[in-house]
């Protein structure tokens, strides 16, 4: 629950001006310069401040506890530690005194970086168009209260605002102490939650609250330089882990409330199919059952039947016993073959939208050129978070209260309000811990369902829990894609032309529709990982065809990069081979003006011992990919088992993600990304028959286990640049690195995922 008051002066907050001083310090215009708001000790005649909300992010109480507002979900990536660290570093408080709390649903906390990911720019694009684009997506995000966690944006987005919030609060404390002591602010410093005078006198922040709330915050503050950091860059132990090793961490599924009921559901196994009729009479009388209800198709969910009972097992047993007549919908005749045939047809027949071109984008081959062409394919994939979809809701006369493991707070609150039929100010949303997110919880279908059920039980909280089977069969899948690459290599083995045409459905359009908005126009996620490539090629064209057959698709860890990086990096390897050149040398030669990419690739090659002899039957494969502001190179060491199954022995990663706040968390995220990427590369394949997903659980949707996990090494490139993302960039290079190693082992070029050696 949050105690935040609405920020006082919204117009002030639209700008974040930055300038680098001659001293090297970063001067920022305060993003959070609203006036402090005090809460007083009840009954205190002299109006003692019990706690002070110094700005949107920071509240300090009389015991010196610092509460930092967090508007991003903890789903394993460590934001409950890294975000408050940004504040603590600049504020100068003791790390032990920092606690986090949910931020309110306010445009102040909108995810501007995530909104900017909609813009079809490449990493090196700059200039007026980019600024205008950013300006409009910033405004859109604030207006829509686009509070969300995704796109590896949390630290990137918080890097300036949360440090600036900490610095602003620190300056208030210094000013308050300066006034008390009659000293100049300039001579004061802060340490361990105290302001320190040149003569060694100190005043704790808690003692300064009464004065600080009367001051006007500065309009500009200087931020520390990386060399001055005390907490950042040191790998502080994560704050969420002690509870997680003791079984005390509270995920959505663990929400317990007085008088609570538990619900579960069955949706039409055919995606988008309808509910015909069902006989609820027996289930209604089953032990513990309160209600059997029809569930409409809400926010992208498929229609179904739900049972509300005293406990999950009662609800589950009852819902399984119901005889349901389903009705077919628009996907009744869709299977994998039809889906791929449709993508191929759209690829052939449409020219698509050109996301990037250079030189002669429709180049005819010159004499002596080798013309190469290949068609690539990627399957549908499920998110398979370990914690199945769930949400708890309570509808009363006052409004609706929701407890949810969501990545999408802003829209979750909107949808809860509309389903409950109340105004948004009557929604209280609590974000629990998430047992994995990976993009699945950017959709709000399960939240709408929980509120719908709770509305039938006014005054009683209802916790909706999906079974694993429903979770697997009713995901918003990573889209399937079919793409064609063309290249011209001249007689000297130089790459003269590179063209991609890729067909897949737009995730952005589908998701906007699910949220009730119309959608149109380009969606760069279809071709990201291709059109934004770092290689210098004189003539290029990258086009995306929006081909949507209606299978529900969603954001899946690394989104378009998850398949486009496979297409591009497998293709680059093929081109290197066709040019008679080494895979690494061929890439490095195309990266002359890209020192960061070169350094990352070189580091991975060196650490992996690329080019040195390997044990018999093993080979290295390499891949390089930028995504979400960070560059990752990987070298995979691979062999084949006798049955042609693939064994990955070692994956060496190098990452340049700018300045590293929490080195060990970055390593952890890349380790996890390699494993996530391997599950997809080796096994991942959701199959549809008659509109129904054939996989149902972990027994038939295989994921990597301990015994299949290679040795994983992660190397960080030191950098003082602003931070890049780390939750996703480790995923895209995995599949191509393994595929390229397989080529060296077998001579087979694998153009489809998952990788299968013939």
């Amino acid at each position, binding site marked *: 629950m949050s105690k935040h008051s609405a920020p006082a002066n919204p117009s002030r907050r639209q700008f974040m001006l930055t300038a680098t001083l001659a001293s090297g310090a970063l001067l920022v215009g305060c993003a959070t310069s609203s006036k402090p708001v005090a809460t007083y000790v009840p009954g205190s005649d002299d109006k003692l401040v019990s706690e002070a909300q110094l700005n949107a992010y920071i509240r300090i109480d009389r015991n010196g506890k610092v509460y930092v507002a967090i508007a991003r979900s903890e*789903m*394993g*990536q*460590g934001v409950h530690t890294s975000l408050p660290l940004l504040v603590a570093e600049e504020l100068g408080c003791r790390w032990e005194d920092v606690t986090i709390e949910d931020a309110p649903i306010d445009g102040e906390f909108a995810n501007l970086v995530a909104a900017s990911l909609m813009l079809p720019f490449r990493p090196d694009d700059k200039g007026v168009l980019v600024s205008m684009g950013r300006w409009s997506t910033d405004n859109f995000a604030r207006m829509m209260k686009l509070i969300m966690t995704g796109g590896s944006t949390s630290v990137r987005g918080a890097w300036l605002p949360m440090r600036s919030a900490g610095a602003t609060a620190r300056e208030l404390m210094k000013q308050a102490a300066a006034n008390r002591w009659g000293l100049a602010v300039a001579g004061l410093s802060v340490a361990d939650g105290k302001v320190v005078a040149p003569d060694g006198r100190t005043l704790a922040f808690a003692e300064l609250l009464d004065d600080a709330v009367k001051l006007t915050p500065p309009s500009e503050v200087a931020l520390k330089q990386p060399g001055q950091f005390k907490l950042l860059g040191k790998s502080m*132990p*994560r704050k*969420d*882990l*002690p*509870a*997680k*090793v*003791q*079984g*005390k*961490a*509270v*995920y959505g*599924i*663990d929400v*317990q409330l007085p008088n609570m009921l*538990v619900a579960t559901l069955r949706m039409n196994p055919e995606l988008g199919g309808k509910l015909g009729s069902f006989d609820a009479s027996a289930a209604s009388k089953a*032990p513990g059952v309160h209600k059997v209800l029809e569930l409409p198709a809400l926010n992208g969910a498929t229609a179904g039947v739900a049972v509300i009972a*005293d*406990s*999950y*097992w009662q609800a589950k047993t009852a819902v399984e016993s119901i005889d349901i007549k389903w009705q077919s919908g628009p996907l009744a005749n869709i299977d994998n073959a039809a889906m791929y045939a449709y993508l191929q047809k759209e690829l052939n027949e449409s020219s698509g939208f050109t996301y990037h071109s250079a030189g002669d984008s429709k180049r005819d081959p010159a004499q002596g050129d080798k013309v190469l062409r290949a068609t690539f394919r990627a399957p549908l994939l499920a998110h*398979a*978070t*370990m*914690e*199945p979809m769930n949400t708890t809701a309570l509808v009363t006369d006052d409004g609706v209260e929701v407890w949810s493991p969501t990545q999408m707070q802003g829209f979750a609150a909107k949808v809860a309000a509309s389903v409950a039929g109340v105004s948004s100010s009557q929604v209280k949303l609590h974000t629990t*811990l*998430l*047992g*994995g*997110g*990976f993009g699945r919880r950017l959709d709000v279908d399960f939240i709408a369902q929980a509120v719908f059920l709770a509305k039938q039980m006014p005054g009683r909280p209802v916790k909706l*829990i999906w079974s*694993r089977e429903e979770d697997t069969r009713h995901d918003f899948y990573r889209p399937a894609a079919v793409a064609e690459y063309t290249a011209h290599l001249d007689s000297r083995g130089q790459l003269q032309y590179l063209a991609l045409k890729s067909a897949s459905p737009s995730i952005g359009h589908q998701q906007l529709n699910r949220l009730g908005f119309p959608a149109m126009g380009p969606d760069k996620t279809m071709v990201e990982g291709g059109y934004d490539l770092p290689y210098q090629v004189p003539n290029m064209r990258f086009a995306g065809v929006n081909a949507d057959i209606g299978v529900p698709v969603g954001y899946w860890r690394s989104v378009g990069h998850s398949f486009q990086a496979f297409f591009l990096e497998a293709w680059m390897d093929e081109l290197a081979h066709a040019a008679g050149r080494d895979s690494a040398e061929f890439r490095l030669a195309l990266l002359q003006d890209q020192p960061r990419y070169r350094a990352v690739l070189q580091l991975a090659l060196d650490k992996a011992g690329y080019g040195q002899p390997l044990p018999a039957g093993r080979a290295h494969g390499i891949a390089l990919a930028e995504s979400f502001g960070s560059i990752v190179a990987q070298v995979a060491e691979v062999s084949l088992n006798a049955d042609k199954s693939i064994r990955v022995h070692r994956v060496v990663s190098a990452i340049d993600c700018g300045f590293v706040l929490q080195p*060990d968390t970055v390593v*952890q*995220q890349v*380790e*996890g*990304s*390699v*494993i*996530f990427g391997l599950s997809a590369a080796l096994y991942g394949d959701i199959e549809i028959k008659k509109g129904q997903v054939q996989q149902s*659980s*972990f*027994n038939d949707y295989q*994921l*990597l*286990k*301990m*015994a299949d*996990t290679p*040795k*994983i090494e992660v190397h960080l490139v030191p950098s003082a640049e602003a931070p890049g993302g780390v939750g996703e960039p480790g995923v895209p290079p995995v599949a191509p690195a393994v595929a390229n190693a397989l080529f060296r082992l077998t001579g087979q070029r694998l153009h489809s995922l998952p990788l299968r050696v013939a």
Partner: protein
Amino acid sequence: MKLTINGKPVAVRAEPNTPLLWVLRDELGLLGTKFGCGIAACGACTVLVDGEAIRSCVMPVSAIEGKAITTIEGLANETLHPLQRAWLQVQAPQCGYCQSGMLMASAALLQKNANPSDQDIDDNITNICRCGTYPRVRAAIHLAAKNGGGKV
């Protein structure tokens, strides 16, 4: 029905065929044991029954009447179990959802085998972690073994 959970006797009302997992979670409020799949495929629900790791989502509560059950809530005594300490030392969890199960499966392994090899770990720790904490879980098991984790 009477059960012994984390050393304490408890009486439960659930239907005899209710899986132990849901008795723990819904009736006894022991929420540390997690639901991942319900078909014994992921290990998120792992608890110890008479020292053996079992997947509680497929274990009817009637089948374990009278046996000693240990859940994640009972793993620590006064202080954290050596596995939990090792887990924190190597910063193993990410989302953490699978970690109760990982810890309980590891506790069962160390009780039988105080110094497991990598192969032993591969053979015994078959739980799924979608976040990919396997390398750190492996390192933490070795670390706990070194610190005498099997003898608690």
